[in-house]
């Protein structure tokens, strides 16, 4: 008898569905992207000690927390490098954020508003990639003052994010339209 029903029990056991994975909270592009801008703008919120030490670590670490361990942060060329510049991993991104924090003050990067039919809104373009997580993009205006020469600029830009399932940034690509940069009043 046991020999007759055993294969049936085995068959039924194998057919039992695995317990469902608890679904995490749905990723909200507005909150994730907003948080990136908040922490980017906080990169000027540090002090110099009375002995001349630049204490950027706290704000930089807070910014880097938003990235996954193997994230990519991709930006425009600068005076130190030609072409597309890629920072990889939290140490690489920490270097970018530290340099950025030490070069700029009065940061006021903001997501642009669009208005149609007298209805203003900030547009967060988002999609779900086939591998999970979330992708999002925004147009923004970069407003900042150079720390050294105290000149203030506004530059239009756009940022494209890929977030993993936990909401950490896997990749961000930032484009700045330097040809449209304008020097503005303090």
């Amino acid at each position, binding site marked *: 008898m046991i020999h007759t029903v055993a294969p049936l029990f085995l068959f039924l056991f194998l057919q039992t569905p695995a317990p469902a994975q608890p679904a995490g909270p749905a990723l909200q592009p507005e909150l994730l992207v907003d948080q990136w801008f908040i922490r980017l703008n906080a990169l*000027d919120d*540090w*002090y*110099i*000690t*009375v*002995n*001349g030490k*630049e204490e950027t670590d706290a704000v930089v670490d807070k910014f880097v927390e938003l990235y996954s361990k193997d994230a990519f942060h991709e930006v425009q060329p600068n005076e130190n490098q030609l072409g597309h510049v890629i920072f990889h991993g939290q140490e690489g991104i920490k270097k970018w954020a530290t340099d950025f924090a*030490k070069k700029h*003050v009065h940061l006021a990067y903001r997501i642009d508003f669009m208005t149609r039919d007298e209805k203003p809104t900030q547009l967060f373009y988002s999609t779900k990639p086939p591998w999970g997580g979330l992708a999002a993009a925004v147009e923004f205006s970069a407003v900042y003052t150079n*720390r*050294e*020469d*105290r000149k203030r600029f506004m530059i239009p830009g756009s940022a494209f994010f890929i977030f993993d399932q936990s909401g950490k940034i896997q990749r961000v690509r930032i484009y700045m339209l330097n040809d449209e940069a304008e020097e503005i009043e303090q």
Partner: protein
Amino acid sequence: MIAISAAAAIALSALGQNRPYDQVMKEVGPAYANLKKNLDANAFPAAVQDATKLESLFKETENFWTPFKTKDALDFAKNAQALAQTASAAARDNNAQKAQGAYNALGKACKGCHDSHREAMPDKSFKIKP
């Protein structure tokens, strides 16, 4: 006493060593107040000493900001040195009006730099903004 601390400041500057910035700033207030008091009393030799001390303190201020290349702070510090020099020269010439003018402009230079680079904390202490 003033001469000794000014000499110490000059020696430290010459060695490329900066005193803690708060120490420098805490000496500016009393020296600035003394300059006013001595100018009001037409005590010109004492006013010259005060202005000379201020000049060396603002040189230390400039030294603090030099590695950061922060233009506005460096401009304020250099302008303050020039104004302290003017006050000193005017006091030496017993020219109270000119010395008072430099004293007033010096106050504006201090305020300009504080507005840009000094932030008051809730415990009433101050921090240095980049």
